[in-house]
């Protein structure tokens, strides 16, 4: 794991519990992310996903452990790590375009104004925002449009690592679907490394190369790393017909509904998540059998 583009090593976070003691949100979380990978992290509310993301962003300090990007320990926020927050982190007094140019001008300080605007407009167009709309203030945009602006701002900065914290959590299902498609489109154009938090299983399967599963807190662990063995380009209507889809989905649902205790007990002492690869398609009898999850490869 040490050779990954992004490696998280023995990360722990403890907070005072308000009664003089401490409670541990998660302990010794270790995992890696490769360049160009799209990784989703799934887990119940409160298990510490946002905490991990804030540490990756450099906005928070872990109680112990290190985060290394390109081999160097991360400390403090940086333009190399872009963030899309759950709640619209657009500046409400700036227009959609200005919110993006704000970021681009910070990222590329030696660009002239015209180039900054051109670059920003191009990225807004990639998420479907064109014409008059980009001159409106966030309050005059729908929730979906606002989150599109956030995504455009993050991608326009071309960070080495893009962090998304439940970016579609506040959106209705239809809008969510459209923006997921746009996110895939922008991502496949750029080969951006993405780390995204979600609690939507279908969203994770649609978007991710790999899904990290977290057990419940306190003392949460990143227990499994599930590879999404569905080829790209993926399409929301078609992936459900892929034989691996329900196998993977069932595995994820079972993990999340099983609760944490069992998993913790079964993998005591292990730091890195267990790699799970489910691929029923390569099995000749796939059509005769129900799509039961089959572990083809397990690594420590």
């Amino acid at each position, binding site marked *: 794991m040490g050779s990954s583009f992004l490696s998280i090593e023995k990360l722990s976070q403890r907070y005072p519990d308000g009664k003089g003691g401490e409670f541990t949100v998660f302990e010794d979380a270790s995992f890696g992310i490769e360049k160009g990978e799209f990784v989703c992290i799934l887990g119940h509310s409160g298990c510490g996903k946002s905490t991990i993301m804030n540490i990756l*962003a*450099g*906005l928070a300090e872990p109680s112990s452990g290190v985060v290394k990007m390109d081999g160097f320990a991360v400390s403090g*926020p*940086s*333009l190399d*790590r*872009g*963030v899309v*927050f759950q*709640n619209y*982190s657009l*500046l*409400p*007094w700036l227009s959609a375009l200005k919110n993006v140019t*704000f*970021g681009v001008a*910070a*990222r590329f300080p030696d660009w002239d104004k015209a180039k900054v605007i051109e670059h920003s407009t191009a990225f807004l167009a990639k998420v479907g925002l064109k014409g008059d709309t980009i001159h409106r*203030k*966030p*309050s005059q945009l729908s929730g979906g449009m606002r989150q599109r602006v956030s995504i455009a701002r993050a991608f326009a*900065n071309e960070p080495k690592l893009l962090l998304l914290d439940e970016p579609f959590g506040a959106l209705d299902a239809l809008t969510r679907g459209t923006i997921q498609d746009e996110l895939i489109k922008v991502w496949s154009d750029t080969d951006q490394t993405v780390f995204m938090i979600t609690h939507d299983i279908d969203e994770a399967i649609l978007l991710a190369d790999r899904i990290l599963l977290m057990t419940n807190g306190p003392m949460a662990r990143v227990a499994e790393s599930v590879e999404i063995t569905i080829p790209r380009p993926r399409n929301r209507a078609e992936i459900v017909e892929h034989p691996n889809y329900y196998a993977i989905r069932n595995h994820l649902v079972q993990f999340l509904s099983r609760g944490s205790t069992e998993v913790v007990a079964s993998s005591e002492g292990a730091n890195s998540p267990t790699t799970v690869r489910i691929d029923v398609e390569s099995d000749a009898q796939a059509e005769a059998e129900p799509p039961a999850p089959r572990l083809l490869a397990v690594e420590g």
Partner: protein
Amino acid sequence: MGILSENKRAALLSVLFLLGVCLIWEFSIPAPKAAGELTEYELLTGGGQPKAGVPPPSQVIGKAWEQLSNPFYDAGPNDKGIGIQIGYSIYRVLTGYALAAVIAIPLGFLIGMSSVAYKALNPFIQVLRPISPLAWMPLALFVIQDSEASAIFVIFICSIWPMLINTAFGVAGVREDWVNVARTHELGALKTAFTVILPAAAPTIVTGMRISIGIAWLVIVAAEMLVGGTGIGYYVWNEWNNLDLTSVIFSILMIGIVGMLLDSLFGLLQRAVAYSE
């Protein structure tokens, strides 16, 4: 009435109301009594003089016409046009106010950003804030030894608190998400202050500035009554001493109108910096 918009109906009603009040006022003032009918008491209190009673609105309008058609005449220390007097008052208010803003806004930023600074300065603010600005006047006159500067000091001291408190409050209340946006974009402290915190806190800061200018205008009238010489406050007091009630009423109206204009100026500024989330 269905044809007129709500604003037009309101304006029409305002005009009718004004006319109604003026008419009642005009006709409820008894005609001046003939000198022979005056009691001795009325004679002593000046009731017999034509200007001693409450003047009717027609007289006030006449006075206003006379004053406003030549607002800047200057005929010696006790006889200056209303424009000159108001000019003096506005000059004092703006000077004291600007000094207060220059100190209150940066200091408010500091207090809003640091809870240590807030805790350290809060006791002083809490003690100094409730002091009536005019209570400073004797001390100011003694220390500064100059009535002009003392009036400005009184304006300074009364306008500083709302600006200071609102700035601190606005800065402390800036959403952490926005500060995090600045942090993830590696903005320096100054850049963050000007491009994120200032616009985010601006509505609260400008509200404080608007409250301050209102208080400053209230206080300047009283302060000028005390220090004398020039200004609209002095003018009111002087006309009272002359028993010219028509001028007193006229200048009261002018104080109201100038106050309203100052306030609406800040109303415009408030609208310019407002944003909705």
